[in-house]
């Protein structure tokens, strides 16, 4: 599931306070925290001893399988978490909805280092570290941590596959995409299509196996019929046009 599926009113509100990507100074960080608190306040959020767990779950992980994972984390570490932790998590969610990657990374570094590592949080923050900060190695560690503690989730496997591809490690990428294909839910059509498309490409590059790659492309298009890259790749693999992988 993509976090983008949770965009909406709160995202637009947060966006209005978004700053251009520059080095964040402490005062700017604090200003963004105040803005996040304003947004939470306008939403009528009051974090109390009897609702902090529920709010954390409803805001940060409304859907499965993330919800169960976060619930498990809270149960394991409840004595070290509590209202302050829930407040930081809700702020983080506001920054996610505002797609403010610098603030997401800064907030994760500043606010969460005092709590036990949470695989779910690391998995989502890793995306920003990888795709926006370009810090592949830090993101790689975070995804690996997520896999270690949340092995059933498809996302870190897929992201490590893509990262391996970018590093020029096509064999490694194929392994990660295989793992991702084993884990993706049938109803997660967007992710399933992306995994199969990418696996088909890498399989063709590594093994030269156009039959298997064609099967992957066909499956990708079953999940997502409107997928121009997969259509183009399928034509290319069938030899109907001049085509290069990716």
């Amino acid at each position: 599931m993509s976090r983008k599926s949770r965009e909406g009113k709160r995202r637009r509100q947060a966006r209005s306070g978004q700053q251009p990507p520059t080095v964040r100074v402490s005062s700017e960080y604090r200003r963004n925290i105040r803005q996040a608190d304003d947004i939470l306040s306008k939403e009528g959020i009051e974090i109390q001893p009897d609702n902090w767990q529920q709010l954390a779950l409803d805001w940060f992980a409304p859907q499965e399988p993330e919800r169960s994972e976060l619930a498990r984390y809270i149960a394991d570490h409840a004595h070290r978490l509590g209202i302050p932790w829930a407040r930081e998590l809700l702020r983080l969610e506001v920054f996610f909805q505002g797609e403010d990657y610098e603030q997401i990374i800064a907030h994760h570094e500043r606010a969460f280092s005092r709590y036990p590592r949470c695989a779910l949080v690391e998995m989502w923050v890793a995306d920003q570290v990888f795709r926006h900060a370009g810090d592949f190695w830090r993101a790689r560690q975070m995804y690996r941590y997520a896999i270690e503690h949340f092995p059933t989730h498809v996302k870190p496997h897929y992201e490590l596959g893509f990262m391996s591809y970018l590093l020029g490690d096509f064999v490694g990428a194929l392994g990660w995409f295989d793992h991702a294909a084993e884990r993706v839910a049938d109803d997660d059509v967007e992710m399933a299509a992306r995994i199969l498309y990418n696996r088909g490409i890498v399989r063709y590059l590594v093994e030269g196996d156009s039959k298997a790659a064609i099967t992957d492309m066909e499956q990708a298009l079953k999940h997502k019929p409107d997928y121009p890259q997969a259509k183009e790749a399928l034509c290319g693999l069938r030899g109907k046009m001049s085509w290069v992988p990716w």
Partner: protein
Amino acid sequence: MVDSRPTLTTKSYWIPTKVAGERLFWMSLEFSLNRPLKKGQPSIAEMALSSGSVDEALLGLPSVVPPKIRKEAQRLLRPWLDSRYTGAYGRSGGILNVFTPPWGELQDEVWAEMVAGWESKAFADDRARQEALRALERQWNTTPHPFFAGLSPAQVMVGGGPQEAELADEFLEHLTRLYDGCPFESEGQALVKTLTLLRRWQSQRRKDGRMVLEIIVAERNELMARRARVLHELGGSR
């Protein structure tokens, strides 16, 4: 009189990150050091190897080359260690690796796994244990590494040659044409786009039917073979 000494030419390219710019400079320097001064003559890298003097070999550089570049060249021409080629972490790795965010021993999952395997094994004595470690180091040196885009650390150490330099120019010009002036949301986004383009480009077959990786590996292997010949002629390794 024609000055046939090697020259360092500067070109302007769009690059996604500041650190890639620095590595691009190393890459160009590696290419320069491996380029023969004249056809059939040795390169500066080979001269350094055969004379045993980096300073002497660097006399071949034009006098206008600034001290900073000379210092960097000295670093690149240092004799390789007999053990593990850890210097590879600090090389550009050529066009296939120049955009990869810098990494080193801490990130090297391959070496970590090899060491873990070695540590878990029982050996007859300390000598056998050390010999096994040396064998592992040699294995690491010559095995294609996933984080070096399939090059081995030895192939990274030797640097790229004239063919790779041409290929690199081709890619960098293509990259610049495509992305110069494009607004990117972040440095990371620019980096991901660049690497995606690079991997697509390297997967294309050239006129001779070979892929870019195959051309680069073949040239680097040739440079290693020349290096080995020089060392052989000297009657020992350095």
